[in-house]
Each structure stands twice: as structure tokens, then as C-alpha cells.
């Protein structure tokens, strides 16, 4: 209870660590996951890419670094469930009363990926999710999105929503967290990032804002 965790000093410390990692990662070559094992990592890369695919609009979640972002998040207070009330009893309750499981995000992924991959193998001649073609992967994800089926102790639709949200966080957060490589997520939307000064653009009668994005560290697209 308490201590450094959850305090502002923890956040500052934590952020500096992430920031430093982000800066050194530039020359470090391909990212090596710290939390996910190789099978999980293959699943995660494939699933993120289906949620936010490469297409005519530009790069997908994989080349934007969303899997790397999620892997890094697993070792933050968030990943460890330190932002959530995690005391029991853990009861079955109507869905509108919110999350009632005892699992933090890192365990949701560990159990969810294993079970989702097992589901894929069951329905596709023993091939794991990452080895399916894109349309079959999408079909599996759609199954999960709409299913109450348990993946470990996580309902499939809940696991899918966790994956969807974290993927989009990775695509659209500041690159210091490991995703949004080259600011391509922000460029897609037309979000100018940390410019954060629009004195002259309060009302330009519907003209598009003319400047591209800049990150917190000063990177431009």
C-alpha cells in the first residue's frame, strides 16, 4: 500500500525511465519484448495489425510500434493493476457495473492470448493465429469481439476490447511510449501533437490546420 507506487514521484521516475528508453531505442534495432514470450509476441503483432491494418491510408499498428507499446505498458503501474481497485471479493455482476475480475492487464494478456490462440488452432487445423491469413485472423477477432466464451478467466469480448484499446493507444500516443513511430498515427488524423498553441487558429472558417505534428521530444513527421 502506498510507498513510491501511485505517488507523483513514481510517475516522474517512471516517465523518465520510459523516456530514456525511447531515446536509446532509436539505434537499438528491432525491439525485443520484455514481457511477452515469442508465441505471445507473434499473436500480438498479428492481432494489432488486424485491428489497425496497413492500407492506402498508411502504415498499420505493427510498423507503428503498437506491439512494442503494449509490451512496455505491461511493466508500468497500469500493467500491474496498480491503478485499479483489486481487493476482493470478486463477484459476478451485471456488465454495466464494470470490470470485476482479479486480473491486471498483464494477466489478462497472458491468459487471453493463450486461449485465443488455442481457439484459432481449434478452428484452423492446428494453425496458430499468427499463421492464418488476414481474413481468417479478422474472422477470429470478430468471433472474440462478440463472444462471452471464456479465454482463461476473461470473457472473449473483454479481452478483445482490452486489445483494441491498447492497440489504439499505441498508434496514437506520443512516441516516447514506444508506438506512433514517425508520428504516422497523428499525421493520419491531422493531429498536430505537442504544438498546443492555436491562438491564430481559433476560427479560420473551416480551413484545415496547416502544420504537421511534433512530438514531446521535438520529433517532427
Amino acid at each position, binding site marked *: *500500500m*502506498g510507498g513510491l507506487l*501511485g505517488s*507523483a*514521484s513514481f*510517475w516522474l521516475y517512471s*516517465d523518465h525511465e520510459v523516456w530514456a528508453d525511447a531515446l536509446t531505442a532509436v539505434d537499438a534495432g528491432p525491439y525485443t519484448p520484455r514481457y511477452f514470450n515469442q508465441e505471445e509476441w507473434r499473436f500480438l503483432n498479428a492481432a494489432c495489425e*488486424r*485491428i*489497425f*491494418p496497413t*492500407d492506402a*491510408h498508411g502504415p498499420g499498428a505493427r510498423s507503428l510500434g503498437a506491439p512494442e507499446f503494449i509490451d512496455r505498458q505491461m511493466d508500468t503501474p497500469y500493467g500491474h493493476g*496498480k*491503478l*485499479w*481497485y*483489486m*481487493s476482493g471479493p470478486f*463477484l459476478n*455482476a*451485471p456488465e*454495466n*457495473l*464494470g*470490470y*470485476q475480475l482479479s486480473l491486471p492487464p498483464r494477466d489478462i494478456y497472458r491468459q487471453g492470448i493463450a486461449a485465443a490462440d488455442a481457439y484459432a488452432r481449434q478452428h484452423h487445423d492446428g494453425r496458430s493465429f499468427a499463421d492464418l491469413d488476414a481474413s481468417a485472423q479478422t474472422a477470429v*477477432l470478430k468471433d472474440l469481439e462478440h463472444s462471452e466464451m471464456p479465454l482463461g478467466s476473461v470473457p472473449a469480448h473483454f479481452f478483445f476490447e482490452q486489445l*483494441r*484499446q491498447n*492497440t*489504439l*493507444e499505441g*498508434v*496514437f*500516443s*506520443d512516441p*516516447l*511510449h514506444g508506438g506512433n513511430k514517425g508520428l504516422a*498515427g497523428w499525421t*493520419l*488524423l*491531422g*493531429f*498536430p501533437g*505537442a504544438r*498546443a*498553441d*492555436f*491562438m491564430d*487558429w*481559433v*476560427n*479560420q*472558417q*473551416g*480551413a*484545415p*490546420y496547416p502544420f504537421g505534428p511534433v512530438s*514531446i521530444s521535438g520529433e517532427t513527421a
Partner: protein
Amino acid sequence: MNARKTDAIVIGAGWAGSILAKELTEAGLSVTVLERGDDRATAVEGDYPSSIDELRGAIRHRLFQNLSQTTVTIRNTVGQVAVPYRRLAAFLPGEGVGGAGLHWSGVHFRVAPDDLALRTNVIARYGKSFIPEGMNLQDYDVTYEELEPFFDKAEKVFGTSGEPYTIQGKIAGKGNPFAPDRSDAFPLPAMKDVYSASLFKTAAANVGYHPYSLPAANASAPYTNPYGVQMGPCNFCGYCSGYDCYMYSKASPNVNILPSLRQDPKFTLITKAHVLKVNLDSEKKKATGVTYLDLQTRQQVELEADLVIVSAFQFHNVHLMLLSGIGQPYDPVANTGTVGRNFVYQTITTSRAWLPSTHYTNQFIGAGGAGVAIDDFNSMNFDHGPLGFVGGSPVWVNQAGAKPIAAAIGGPGGKAPAWGEGYKDAMVETYRHSLTIDAHGSNMAYRDVYLDLDPTYTDAYGQPLLRMTFTWKDNDIRMNQYVVSKIEPIMKAMGATRYSLEKLATDQLFDTRRYQTTHLGGGAVMGADPQTSAVNRYLQSWDVPNVFVIGASAFPQGMGYNPTGMVAALAYWSAHHIRTTYLKNPGPMVRA
């Protein structure tokens, strides 16, 4: 630690606590503010650019309450088992110095005068039978005329930007014609209207409504407040809601009050101090001080005082009263007791309009308090007779700065996919070319909607969690549906290529998973009758007269307007009467 003594203890360093601390030190009292979170300074963790990191900010809740230590439990109905609110979503209480007043948006209303005596006014206009069975409709027992000097004072402290309608009975500007008369102008002129708000202003006027620029505690120009602290002009960066304003443009306790208080030797701020209970004498008629847990040493500390101000967030106030035994807990079955009674919220639904692809709404540009609203369907500004419900909603474009993560997770809206093929196309169109219109409305109080202590779950310190029993009721759902129907003509007049109208569904349950608003209220309401109110018109506990309970906990109903302006005015009102009456003759200020 040894027991220590101070003249007054103030619990919580948000708006209400900071105002009371300022007023009581001005009155010559030694004041100790106890805040369970961290100290927070805009110059440190609110600095540009690291503070405008959406992931760390609004998404991972940098400035919000960390639920791992304490939360509430929630159920919809009395017969259900309540379960913990484990992850922040529906509402976002603050934590740390500044409280929710550090991460708020800045919409700074006064009050619709009719709302202060809503029960009396509804009965006078429509008869007593108009009030639905089970609705605890009540008056505040204070008038707008009594509060006006304190609204004025709060606006001058906050550096509020706005356009008046009348000042001292004379038309003085193009402000809200439904707004009550003012004794003085706003300290600063209204914020500029962003493009989407300007479209709304023209369209709403064209269909016969009365649009006005929102009163905003976002500074439209440099400003120095009566305490000598300075604000910089807002640059529409869009990081108000959920953030600490690096421009020093959004009013916060941290920027507008505490810099002056911190220089006062009579003022002491203790952070990481979690108040466990207000200590009472053996007859529970007098508070002797508080016991708090020093979160750094893990030691319990007793602090003695003559006066205890309970001024934490709305539901923390009620929680602390219940834990301390101040007043009688409300029992919805016997319909007795007052603490926890009339727990209220607000209704809010967000509708969206899409403009032609040649029109860019640049939704990342904005300010949390700025926008354009209409009051034609708020409070008692329209005829409820044929409609058969009580209450109303302002309707507005309040473009606070749409960030990419929240927008992307929310999805493109309508029938467009929320991921995968087709998602990017739709998301780009929605982000670049749409705008949103909210109906932000009232929520009435009901006999079976209330707060009490949970029988099962405890916080990290071993105390029972507060339990919320809450759901939407027919009266408020129908109000929302009616007001949202009035948005449609505005959408059409704006030239929307398509639009989606969002409203509460009939029989819809309160859903804790989706952000709605942090405007919770009631539970320790003010009023004239100690059988139906926990505090009197000066926000003084009926039962323990040296305890004052300040905040939105005093609202008997959830009003259509945003609550902070009313909270600040009530804080100054209460402080004024403590200074001018109570301190000279401590004791009950109203005879029960």
C-alpha cells in the same frame, strides 16, 4: 506524533477547501489543510511539454484519484449487491492539491435562480401532483440575491471570461438572456468562439433559440486576481480537461488561491494526510478535531481544532460524515436520516454532426470552458406542463480539445466499424470534419437513490467503502430525450451532411464503464428542514455545529449547469457567515 492544535482544520485542498482556508486565515485563524494526495505545482509536473502527454494524462489518469487505495461500490437498485468501481470511467474524482479543481475544464456558471427553489417553483406553476412519486424535490433555502455577491467574488478570483446580459438591471451585452442579473461585469471578455461553436451560434439563432458564449474560467486575456496572482491568456491548446494548465490560463486552486495562501504564516498544508474520521465528543454534538493517517510514516495523527471544514470531493464528504457519525445516516426504507440522502448526478449525452469534407473542425483546438450554449431548455425556462417532467438541460458546443487516443477509442461513430477494415476512413472523416453537441442536464433526487457504507468492501486503510445506489429514472430520461430532440433543427441549420442524436434510452441503467461526467452531487444537502437536509443554509451541520460541509454534496438536485461556480459561491457564502456570525458566537446559526 503528539496531538496538536489548530484553530480550524480544512479537509481537502480543492476549490472548496482552498476558498475556506483563504477566508479563515483572513479572519485571523490558524488553518491546517489536510490533503491525502500529493502537493502539485504547475511549474513542476504541469510544465510544457511533458504535461500534455495524453497517455499519461487523461488515459492513465495522472491527476485523478488512484482507486487502488480507495473507491466506492455501485449498484443500480436497493435489492442488488454493490460491487467496486474498480477502474475509473464514468466519473473522475481528483486527488492531490487542487483536487478536481486542477483537472476540471473551466465552464463557470452561476445558477439558474429557479433551481434554488425548484420544489416551490414547480408546485407554484404546475401543482404538487406534478412531482412524481418517490422524487425528493427540495429547495436550497438560499436565494440568488443572497448568493450574488459570492458569485461575483468567485468570478473575480477565478478570472472568469464571459459576456453579460444584464448588469444592475440594464442590458449590458449579448450574453445569455436567461442568466440572472449581475452586480458587475465579468472580469474578462468572453473567450472567442471556435469554428464549430460559431456555426452553432448562427444555426441556433436561425432556428429561434438564444445562443451565448459560455462563461469560462479560462482567461481570455492576462489577468491579476484580487489575491495578486496572475493568469496568462489562453492559447486554445486543448489541454484543459484532465490536465494542469501550463499556460496558467485555466483557474485552479493551485494557480488562483494557493500561491497567496502559502505565504501566510497562519496557513499549514499537510499532504499525504488521509483523514480517517472527524473526532466528536461523547454526545456527538461537537467536533474536537480529526484523526488522519500520515501516508508516509503510516502513523495515525490526532489534530485538535475548534472548527472542522469538510470540503473534500462530493462523495468523500458524505463518506467522512458516515465514518465519523456526524448526523443520522439516511435509511431509504424507513425514510429517516439525512446523511446520504438525495444523491444526484447529471444527465449528459453527446450527439455528433458531420460537415462537408471541405470543412475542417480542427477539434484539437479548444478550451475546456469555452463554447456556445443555449438555455432555452434548461431549468424552468420552458413550459413543462404538457411534457410532464421536471428539470432541463443546456445544450452546447463545448470543444475542449479532442485528443487522438480518446477519439480513436471512442471510434468514428454512427454505423462505422470500431476497428479493422474501414475504420481509418471513417475515423479520419469524424476527426477532421465532425463536431459534437451535448445536452448536459439535470438529474432529480429520489427516495431510493442514495449513499451509505458498504457492508463488504473496505479501503486500503480498513474502513468501509462508500456505497452508491444509483440509476437513471424515467423523469430524467424523458427530459434528456425531449431536449435532444431540440438539437435536430440546429444540426440541420448548421449544414450537417449527416448527424447522430444520442439520448438516454427508456429504462436505461447507469453504466459505470463509460465516461459521463464528474458532476456528482448531494448526499449532505442544504435546506431549511433538518429532517430532509444534513446542513443548514450556511452549510453548517445541523447535528455538529462546529462542522461545515462544503461542496456539491450540498445540492438537493443535480442542476443543468456545471457545478463548480455554484460550489465556489456556496463556499464564499458559508465562509462569509462563519466570519461575520459564527466566529463571534459559535453555535447553531439556524434554529431547527
